[in-house]
């Protein structure tokens, strides 16, 4: 449970010192995740140490933005007024080509056409006061 920051009513990412670069990079249209130079493992944002080898030398690195749908749901109710007009909307877990998984909405596809394994590509859409948010589209 945590508090949500809102801009013009829109929930913003919940930032901490471990994940801020990932969200900051969205303004530049980049999918920034983490990478361990010691064992060459790509990590989802928010890692302090490499979960594979324990190294603390984890670095931020740009991912290709290509990936596939690992799992998905369709929200038929929302629990937040900002999303009420969007119901039913999808939320997907995207597995990047490099390996890490990110939570995101997939745009440009009907909910009925979502499938696990479907190829997707990063795109950025402005929400709230024009802050770009990472989304994915078929591709």
């Amino acid at each position, binding site marked *: 449970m945590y508090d949500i920051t809102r801009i013009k009513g829109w929930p*913003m990412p919940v930032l901490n010192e471990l994940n801020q670069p990932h969200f900051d990079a969205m303004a530049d249209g980049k999918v920034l995740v983490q990478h361990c130079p010691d064992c060459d493992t790509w990590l989802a944002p928010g890692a302090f140490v490499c979960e594979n080898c324990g190294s603390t030398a984890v670095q931020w690195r740009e991912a290709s933005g290509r990936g596939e749908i690992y799992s998905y749901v369709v929200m*038929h109710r929302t*629990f937040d007024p900002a999303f009420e007009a969007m119901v039913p909307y999808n939320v997907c877990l995207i597995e990047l080509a490099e390996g890490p998984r990110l939570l995101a909405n997939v745009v440009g596809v009907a909910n009925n056409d979502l499938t696990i394994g479907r190829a997707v590509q990063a795109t950025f859409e402005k929400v709230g006061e024009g802050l770009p948010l990472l989304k994915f589209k078929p591709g």
Partner: protein
Amino acid sequence: MASKKPLAAIRGFAMSDLSRQYIGPTWQLAVTAIHRAIADAGLKKSDIDGLLINKSPVATLMDLPMDLLDYAGLKDLTLCSVVEAEGSSGVQMVQQAALAVQAGMAKAVVCVFSDAPIVPGVSTQQAFGMPLPLMGKLGSEAPTGLFGPVAAYALAARRYMHKNHLTEDHLGAVAVACRQWALKSPLAMMKKPLSMQDHHNSPYVVEPFHLFDCSFPVNGAVAVVVTSAERAADGPQPAVYIHGMGQGHRGVTNRRGFENEIEIGAKLAGQGAYAMAGVGPKDIDCAQVYDAFTYCILLQLEQYGFVEPGGAGEFVLAGQTAPGGSFPVNTGGGQLSGYYLQGGTPLSEGVMQARGTAGERQVKHDLVLTAAYGGRMMYHACMITSPHASL
């Protein structure tokens, strides 16, 4: 089977009233359950020297403070702690109490879970609908609109269903089996028969979950009194002997090769408990497992070794966990049709079954597995209990 002494035993058990209405604050329900459990154990407040407290993760410490000991009128405790392991706490408290009793730190430990999520002006949807950091890494739940445990679990269920070629019939079969049990339980909240069609016709909350895939929150409290096996044998109620305990925590790894939705810590917890009790899954007569959502029963049946991986959907669809089936599961209706008191739900039914006091829904109970988990199935605890002091 091995012939080992039990680790400890449950001597007292009670619940507060359960309600979908506001019937008092969390601490008050807790005190009621504590006093009733002490009376059920045939003990006095002055006999109690240990208190373990667990609150819902969505409640605050103000709702169920550590000074509950004063509210309950307990004095001279040699053990007192708030246990915070999310939904697995219901079983973890009993484990910790058993260890304390074994170590001589306390003689009679009360363990209590209490929750009052339903208050005037706040729906259960609002109470449980906040964004929760259930995806392993905090941050993206709110901006993507993933709210509440139901959404996080639906995401996990979709992956599990995909891997095992399951349909909503398999989820529905879980809900139907639980409802059949609930119809036999005077404590259960959901008393209308439920058909597969009723399940499918109920609205989606978060697809693939329909309304009847989700648990049923109530206000209420559960308390047990844990003592040594010897002391429990002297009580007015049948002793519930604890023969095996286990925990399993694997965290969440958000990258390729790690299926957090399928490989959960329950397997580790089960292995520990089976080894300690000297039994295996085939020896267990019934299971009481945490079923916040239908998918959770399927996965736990596999992880605790009752069904081969991927086989739970067909097993439940064939009616094996329902009344009359080969392996009764959540015989009080579970959290789906009975009452959602988090880890307190399987604990309560596990005690009633092991005591042999489950009335119309009583099943063979020489060995009962009780399991609870927390988070998005990140934290697991289980125990193997029996009315028999030696196995």
